[in-house]
């Protein structure tokens, strides 16, 4: 009886997530991703300006459909994503542990918090309009009401440290409100972002609603900040690099993007509404009352 050789594992190729597909970078470039101890983890795709532009096109294409889904449906899809994430818990624990150098217990807690965060935001889909909108008691015979609507295409520079919980915390509020997103993942810790894109792709989220770029954020951030078809940009990933954040904010002014400046955030704390409201427009509608 021959000895059974230990099975060779099948490694995963990490690519980008654009428009519902998982393409390599158009440049063909990759970069080495290491774990917290500096050991090789994987080669990840290194996105370029062109990839960023392609992702914006995909996000724009997806916006009309996604923003006109019912709020209930968007909530269901986000909840579905939480279910799928939970089902892949072991994989995420391993990736988060590798990326962030956490203990197993901490990595588990982080993945669980990410799942719970998705559930929390999923529930907001069909409630936020009642909290931030309403009717306006104008002093003339008009029915006047204000409702929140998505701003459009949002560029997100994901936090550098928190590779999954941070990522989910910045992406979920943007899409639950009906926006579509191009997210530049953490430069050094990109792997969970692509696995998360796989979760979204199997959760009935339409292609193009979430597009993920890996690679140095510095390669894609200027394109997202200056792109005339991006409506808002979240500079969270520039935390600690004030000069970079300022340059990007200046570029964002060309089409008057809504800008969220980097601020120190505790991803384990319960979020407020502001990560949803900053990507919402208030629309006010007037109609005469009469017979």
């Amino acid at each position, binding site marked *: 009886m021959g000895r059974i050789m230990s099975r060779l594992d099948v490694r995963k190729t990490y690519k980008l997530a654009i428009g519902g597909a998982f393409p390599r970078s158009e440049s063909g470039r990759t970069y080495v991703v290491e774990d917290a101890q500096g050991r090789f983890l994987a080669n990840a795709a290194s996105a370029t300006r062109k990839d960023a532009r392609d992702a914006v096109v995909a996000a724009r294409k997806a916006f009309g459909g996604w923003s006109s889904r019912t709020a209930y449906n968007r909530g269901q899809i986000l909840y579905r994503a939480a279910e799928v994430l939970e089902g892949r818990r072991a994989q995420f624990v391993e990736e988060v542990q590798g990326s962030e150098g956490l203990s197993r217990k901490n990595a588990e807690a982080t993945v669980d918090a990410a799942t719970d965060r998705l559930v929390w935001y999923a529930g907001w889909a069909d409630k936020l309009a009642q909290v931030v909108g309403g009717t306006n008691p104008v*002093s003339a015979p008009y029915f006047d009401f204000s409702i929140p609507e998505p701003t459009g295409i949002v560029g997100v520079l994901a936090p550098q440290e928190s590779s999954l919980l941070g990522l989910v915390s910045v992406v979920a509020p943007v899409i639950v409100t009906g926006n579509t997103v191009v997210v530049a993942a953490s430069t050094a810790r990109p792997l969970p972002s692509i696995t998360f894109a796989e979760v979204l792709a199997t959760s009935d989220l339409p292609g193009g609603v979430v597009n993920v770029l890996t690679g140095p954020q510095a390669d894609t951030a200027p394109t997202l900040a200056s792109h005339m078809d991006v409506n808002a940009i979240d500079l969270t990933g520039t935390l600690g690099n004030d000069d970079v954040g300022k340059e990007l904010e*200046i570029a964002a002014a060309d089409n008057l993007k809504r800008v969220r400046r980097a601020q120190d955030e505790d991803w384990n704390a319960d979020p407020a509404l502001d990560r949803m409201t900053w990507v919402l427009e208030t629309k006010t509608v007037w109609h005469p009352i009469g017979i």
Partner: protein
Amino acid sequence: MVSTRSTTSDPGSGPTSASTGIFDYAPAPESRSVLNLRSSYGLFIDGEFVDPVAGGSFKSISPASEEVLAEIAEGDAADVDLAVQAARRAYTRTWSRLSGRERGKYLFRIARILQERSRELAVLESLDNGKPIRESRDVDIPQVAANFFYYAGWADKLDYAFPGKAPRPLGVAGQVIPWNFPLLMLSWKIAPALACGNTVVLKPAETTPLTALLFAEICQQADLPPGVVNIVTGAGETGRALVAHPDIDKVAFTGSTDVGRQIAKTVAGTRKKVTLELGGKAANIVFDDAPIDQAVEGIVDGIFFNQGHVCCAGSRLLVQESIAEDVLARLKRRMTTLRVGDPLDKNTDVGAINSAEQLAKIRELSDVGEQEGAGRWSPPCDLPSNGFWFPPTIFTGVTQAHRIAREEIFGPVLSVLTFRTPAEAVEKANNTPFGLSAGVWTDKGSRSLWMADKLRAGVVWANTFNKFDPASPFGGYKESGYGREGGRHGLEGYLRWDAS
């Protein structure tokens, strides 16, 4: 002191219109005797009128006659600095220590004085700005008082506006306002800022500083603590100094998209919170089932209200092809009854263009409209010889590529386009970098709401246009700016929530 002139010396007194012979109105000018203008005004800093550090000045004129109304101090960076220091002191020592209830009482008091002095303010606004007294008296000034009354009530209820967030003021707000609704824009800026516990430095527009200076007197009459409101007059340079000042916590600006972009760049990388209310190129969409006569009134209100100097003006008429001929015929007939002339005449519908500079811009873009092949039409109309005037004008046969369909003219000039289907109307309406407002005229409720849902604009008027209210949030999508003014939403730009 500028003496009160007899109205007969007014160049161009009495409205003129093509309807002479059908409706001849005798001149019905509002009296200027209610005004008590000084010949010169200093800057209002720390509760006092003071001379500017460098001592420069400029003149504010009546755009209807080019008469000099008063000499106005020109504030520079040194003056702005003094004003910001005064505002900071007032914030730290007085205003932020007052309870919301007491702050609110000051605002109520100001609202009452505004009501008491409303006639004076209306006359001065029409004189300095050129808008018809009918509008300053019935729209601008009543809304000014209403804004203060509305936000006064919020001052001690902020915890209810944002439950669980413990809102706190930002500090010192730098506010820059335009010339189209001088005092109304002041009230949109100052009332919510003060209600939320901030102090302000406000720069009125160069061509329309007078009602802001009268408002400074009203602050004195109300015994508002010194430094809570500071008014620094001047031109663009003064505004730039204010926006760039390192000790302001907030910038609020209403004006052009180009200046809005500059401001967004100036504040990049700072802690300053920003709200921008910028330009527009609103579509006013008329369907074939609309009540046509009401729609025609709405079109006229949409573009000729305030001489078209309105960021949310309905400057693109999108009319369904099947009724285009009828709508245009009725619109032209209605336009011939518009009375253009002396802003102080109670019968005037369309007043003076605010400045020579703005008139030149309107003329230039209108000439471009002709050169690009659109058909230009104005009712026959005798314009006064002095002052700045432009007749109500429409352009037909306009395409989406024409500059007059894309750029904000900010004057009484309407571009007319047509559409066949609701989807085409939506596509054309949204085909602009702006997104401030839109209008929809149809008798079908479901269609109104469908259109309102699809239009990418901050305000949608269905079977009405150019309506404003202190309780109603206002502000744009896309390059029309960000943030909202009015209503509960209008508080948000003046508060912070962090626990620090």
